[in-house]
């Protein structure tokens, strides 16, 4: 069987669906950040596959940028999670309810 661009896109969409499920069911901040990282991986996969099959280098360059920014995002996110954990001993978004209304 020939592996086509569609196969890669389907895998990308499945990864996206799994991470969306994670976003809506998990309330732990670290798990949420993980789920969002998973979307970034799906994006990187789509772009790389696009480059392979469409012959445009832009996708691979974009994938490198996505991975880099995802790392920066994880750094900012985990720094905030640690700051909150020191303060409140909890990183569950449902129990962080000083701000609401």
């Amino acid at each position, binding site marked *: 069987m020939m592996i086509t*661009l569609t196969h890669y*896109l389907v895998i*990308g969409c499945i990864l*996206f669906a799994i991470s969306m499920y994670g*976003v809506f069911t998990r309330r732990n*901040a670290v798990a*949420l*950040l993980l789920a*969002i990282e998973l*979307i*970034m991986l*799906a*994006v990187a996969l*789509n*772009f790389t*596959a*696009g480059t392979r099959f*469409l*012959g*445009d280098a*832009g*996708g691979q*360059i*974009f994938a490198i*940028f*996505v991975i880099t*920014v995802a790392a*920066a*995002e994880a750094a*900012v*996110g985990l720094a*905030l*999670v640690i*700051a*909150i954990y*020191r*303060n*409140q001993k909890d*990183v569950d*978004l449902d129990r*962080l309810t*000083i*701000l*609401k*209304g």
Partner: protein
Amino acid sequence: MSNWFILLPEIILAFTIMLVLIVDLISTSCQRLWLGVLSLVGILLTVICLWIVPSGAFGEAFLNDGLARFIKSIVLLALLLVVLFSWDFDKVWGRPLGEYLVLLLSSGLGILFLASGTEMILLYIGLELTTFPLVLLTAYCPADKKSAEGGLKFLVLAALGAAVLLFGFSLIYAAAGTTQLQALVPALIQTGNTPLVLMGLLCILAGLGFKMALVPFHMWVPDAYEGAPTAITAFLSVAGKTAGFVLAIRILATGFPVQVSEWSRIFAVLAAVTMCLGNFAAIPQTNMKRLLAYSSIAQAGYIVMGLVAFQVLGLSSILYYLTAYLFANLAAFGVVIAVERSSRSVELSAYHGLAMRSPRLALIMLLALLSLAGIPPLAGFAAKFYLFAAVYSEGYIWLVVLAVLNSALSLYYYLKVIRAIYIQKPAADAVQPVTVPLALTIVLVVTTFGILALGVYPSPIVDLAREVVVLFLTP
């Protein structure tokens, strides 16, 4: 071949950021004044440069056209006023000023790139350069539990929004094979509206919804606005919103003009839901920052109507609305900051009897809120008038009726604040007039002048906005 000169405003701002960082490192604590002065000079130089450099493209990714210049001027003005807001930030909040200014200016730099980007990679990097510093600034006082919590919630939802937008980009890329927005148009005409393209477009619209804070993607707004230091809330509400709208205009107008009937219908529904929910949720609020947060969601609902009426009139009224909104919102936040400095509170009860204690501050708040509500002859009225006229001429009469009803509804909670200021008696322990430092006074004078001038004599800005949009739509 490439014309570096076009990037000059961005280069100057980037150098200012590095210079502030270095000066912060080598200066002693009594030389903090220089950090603010340096930032102001850098921003002013950037503004001057912006109007000197010629229009044109740098490579295929960066375009300095009239629209970019207009948006950049709005953002730089907001940046300038917010730096003045934070003049003695280190004293009031007890946190270092140097890094604060660096983050603030970096976020501004991100918006400058967003306003000029015509290529997905640049737009994405610009977007993240805008968002991450804002997240860090929101959580800048981690000892304050609200600040850290607001920052985390902001980060999670902003990252989710950016990731969904990015997923949309990747699907569109897989369909069209290019990251260049102009090149998308012929490629997408060739492929037609396949499910892949429509799904990509839908993801992009959802991502843009997060950035423009449209319902149902607005959950981060009240928490981030309440948790952030007030000067940052002001910047988020003005520049953050401007960034969202310019991103939407760039992506949709340049990349997806063919699919206009699909996305304008979606935006019509989102606009209706956003303004209703924003206004209804604002009514019971007693915290001024939260009230203004919901008010800004409702304002986003009005502004997005300009995208529904995707013509010269619609787009130019978005630009005019953003200008009017800048002055009114920054004036309101200026008064909030002044009151917060003296009473350490952003609750509505701190405003009781403000008219007796500080009649001038009370008057500024009155003008700002009436402008936000759209009462003539203030800036907000002209802005709403042009916007509603544009939507009406496109045939969305139900949307205009709903928007007018919503404006009337919004008057209710704006008047609630005005009632607290003018009618209720001040608390027994709060009879001193509110002291306003010089930097804040400058902001209040500028913004009040803006509210009145744009309301009485709107034509220069309206003409400029129209000229810019005509050039933008007919390349």
